[in-house]
């Protein structure tokens, strides 16, 4: 009798365990596509060549159907007085940092999504709305996004922006590396318009080589650091500069991919669902023992 009820109990326990874990690990792993293509593209930004004309800001808006003032208005350099960040109305902005010495030029830095090789946003998104495409772009899918803004919490560069003032279908906005254009073999809009060739579009692998060659050729022009080569596991957009990147308000980041620790914890807890199922079984046994002990005590 006792055995009978025990068998039933254990069977049911196993059943519910299986149904909680009905989510198969294989499916879970397959969810975000995170293929790092060897030929993925990137952009090398040479901040020493950028003159702050902000034509890229204009081109980016036009390419993404965002409202913009006419191109001439972008000559106004008074915007540089304040530090700006990309937001839902501008996917890229250029900031200016004053020269240190009289004979030097001020430094202009164009900012947009870095298109990380191991993007925190892709790992974090609750519904997998972000994906790293083969071409290198990290793109966002409006059909999936639920607007939880966890991607914004996760991004080490604080890039994704949200349309806080929309009640229905607010979007996450960020540079999409002109995915629609590059798919057709066109250049990203900002790269195409840049008059100073401060932006170089190419295979990331080659860009890294070019960057180091430039540093070797002009050691007085650049510091020996390609920002983005290793930061958070490498990014598709990389920067050259003539002073420490921290002074240009780049975040100081380690070499480990941003989602690394989280994914390790997560997959540790859920290693093929063994820990939760084991806990379930353990609690089941404890409950059964306690119940029976109670019964025997009463029977005596």
């Amino acid at each position, binding site marked *: 009798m006792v055995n009978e009820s025990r068998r039933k109990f254990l069977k049911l326990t196993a059943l519910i365990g299986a149904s*909680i874990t009905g989510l198969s690990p294989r499916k879970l792993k397959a969810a975000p596509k995170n293929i790092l293509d060897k030929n993925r593209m990137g952009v090398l930004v040479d901040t020493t060549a950028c003159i702050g004309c902000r034509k890229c800001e204009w081109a980016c808006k036009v390419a993404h159907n965002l409202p913009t003032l006419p191109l001439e208005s972008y000559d106004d350099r008074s915007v540089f007085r304040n530090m700006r960040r990309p937001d839902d109305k501008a996917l890229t902005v250029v900031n200016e940092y004053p020269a240190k010495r009289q004979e030097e030029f001020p430094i202009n830095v164009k900012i947009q999504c870095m298109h990380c090789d191991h993007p925190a946003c892709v790992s974090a998104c609750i519904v997998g709305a972000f994906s790293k495409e083969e071409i290198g772009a990290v793109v966002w899918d409006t059909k999936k996004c639920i607007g939880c803004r966890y991607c914004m919490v996760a991004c080490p560069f604080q890039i994704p922006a949200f349309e806080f003032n929309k009640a229905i279908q607010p979007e996450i906005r960020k540079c999409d590396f002109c995915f629609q254009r590059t798919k057709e073999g066109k250049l990203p809009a900002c790269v195409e318009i840049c008059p100073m060739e401060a932006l170089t579009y190419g295979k990331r692998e080659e860009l890294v080589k070019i960057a180091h060659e430039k540093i070797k050729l002009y050691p007085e022009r650049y510091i020996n650091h390609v920002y983005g080569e290793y930061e958070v596991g490498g990014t598709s957009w990389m920067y050259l500069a003539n002073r420490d990147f921290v002074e240009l308000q780049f*975040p100081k980041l380690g070499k480990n991919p941003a989602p690394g620790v989280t994914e390790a914890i997560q997959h540790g807890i859920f290693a093929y669902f063994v820990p939760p199922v084991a806990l379930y079984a353990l609690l089941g046994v404890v409950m059964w023992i306690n119940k029976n002990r109670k019964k025997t005590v009463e029977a005596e």
Partner: protein
Amino acid sequence: MENFMKPAPISKKFFTPGVIILTGFAVIGLIIVLIRLLFGLGAVTNLSNQYPWGIWIGIDVAAGVALAAGGFTTAALGHIMHKEEYHVVVRPALLTAMLGYTFVALSVALDLGRYYYIWHPLIMWNGNSVLFEVGMCVMIYLFVLYIEFLPIVTERFIGRVNLPGFLKVFNNPVDKFLRLLDRTLNKVMFIFIIAGVVLSCLHQSSLGTLMVIAGPKMHPLWQTPILPLLFLLSAISVGFPMVIFESLITSKSFGLKPELKVLSNLGSMVAPMLGIYLSFKIGDMVIRKTFVYLNEINIESILFAIEVVVGIIIPLRIFLSPKLIKSPVGLFIGSALVIFGVLLNRVNNFIVAYNPPYKFTPYFPSIGEIGVTLGFIALEVLLFRAFVMIFPIVSVPQYITPQTKFSVRGA
């Protein structure tokens, strides 16, 4: 005099001055909710591209989940460890958890930019996302809590089904259905009870993993890979204090005698749990050498110190004192401090510690955000009151020896 405790609906007047004030808060909160739904998050919150999450996530969701931990800790004690003497606190804790998680779900929905897509995670999976796991666990756990509550509903209505008007013909079938439901639930309930505990352990800890991905954006006093463990330990330690706190308030507001013996016994289990939590918190600080940040006096270090001293060490001292845990005042203050400590910890983790690059205006919750948070808390309290008056939740003495030795009539 023989008496034993049995849950029963409490009959009292629903409206009291306190209830009317709470109703006011609830109405204001709901009006702000309406504005948010009509004009977007920006209309009522101080959120920005730098501070995407505010107190709706930090307090309503994260602290809400932690403070509803009484549900799974008492379930583990009462049902899994099978300690029957604690059954008087299981139902109130279950009700708190059920209401708590319902409001957590509502707060999440309200905070989502696209609340009408809240079902997306059910079919669009990202196994790497901590938020996905938290969302799924909370969703399933909420369902489990509703199932666990069902027997209380059947108990209330079996033999008492009394539908109005022409629906009367259904009285019998409904009653039969309730009886069947009750019997079935009775047999399978243990499945849900164990599942509830497992799911709780999973998402209580994963809530801590949530902020790990923010990496260097989070203040080192809180950013640690053992955040999930700390969250789980603190949730377990706040479970019983929450039950004690609530039980004391409920008895006070309904004029009942507090279940002091049970509460003291519960209280005696708090100290070891708080002790473990404290040792892991301090140990983590020593190993990562983050105590250096306590040398600087700033908002982070002050709040961290308050969290540890006022929220853990002082209540630990109270719960270690055999005298204090026997008195309602000691129990009340000790529990209130633990609750305050865990609440502050969640706020610290999700808001104070979060320090994004390029901040323009530091985040401080808007009137709208505070209004909704207060409104939801008020609504929860009101619903709790309504539920204990409708359903058999709070145990009241049932006098089974009617003959009294001394007649008090006319005295």
